[in-house]
């Protein structure tokens, strides 16, 4: 009826981008986390499990680490913060040719496995990469039983 209402003019590329992502998901066939949102969220996340920990890598360049809020509540990890724009205010003396970098507030939410220990979390920020390491509870570790 009013397609322009939903896809503002000039948003053709965003629409193509979305299409290609949907196609990719179709072919990948992998289930997507319900909280993943659209692909391409900021910060991009890589997550790995080791037998003793959950390792979360958040690619968050140019963010003041003091202003990143990392929280674990009821088995859900939230990474929240804000990134200021580096672009100068618009004026007739300045031309902006590309504005691809995310600016503004961001939030990513990740559900964690049941056996994590929210008291043993370590977060470091280096080279624009936020690494959160969450230990799994010792009583959940596989343990070899000695046979006498």
């Amino acid at each position, binding site marked *: 009826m009013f397609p322009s209402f939903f896809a503002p003019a000039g948003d053709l590329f965003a629409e193509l981008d979305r299409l290609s992502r949907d196609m990719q998901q179709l072919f990948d066939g992998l289930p997507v986390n319900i909280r993943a949102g659209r692909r391409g969220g900021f910060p*991009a996340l*890589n997550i790995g499990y*080791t037998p003793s920990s959950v390792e979360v890598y958040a*690619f968050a360049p140019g963010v003041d680490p003091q202003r990143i809020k990392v929280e674990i509540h009821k088995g859900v990890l939230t990474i929240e913060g804000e990134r200021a724009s580096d672009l100068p205010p618009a004026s007739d003396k300045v*031309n902006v*040719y590309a504005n691809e970098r995310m600016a503004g507030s961001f939030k990513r939410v990740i559900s964690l496995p049941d056996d994590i220990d929210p008291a043993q979390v370590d977060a470091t*920020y280096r*080279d624009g990469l936020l690494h959160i390491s969450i230990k799994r509870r010792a009583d959940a570790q596989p343990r070899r039983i000695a046979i006498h």
Partner: protein
Amino acid sequence: MTETRSNVPAETRRDDPVLLPPVDIVEDDTGITVYADLPGVPKDKLAVRVDRESLTIEGEISFGLPEKMDAVLAEVQAPRYRRSFTLSRELDTDKCDAVFKDGVLKLRIPKVEHAKPRRIEVKVG
């Protein structure tokens, strides 16, 4: 006469799996500033190559990974960033200035003196 750089952001070489770092590009009277997001790249793994015609930004993601880790989510799917641009001649590539902090590269390429805008006096004949 500032608008002489219509050929600037032209990416080249996209054959091997690399990440395309998002950029902001701003031009003012005295030069061009490029900001690029390259999270996870330590300073010694970043290469910025500039010659008279082109600019290439390349970086390798490098950080310690624990052993025996199974990936459950990988939104970043390649360990390398690369992006190239062609430059125009009024840029003074010998005077580039690059700062790399917290995974953000800020590269300033000034214009050569005579390329800066000049107001042309219009005389009444």
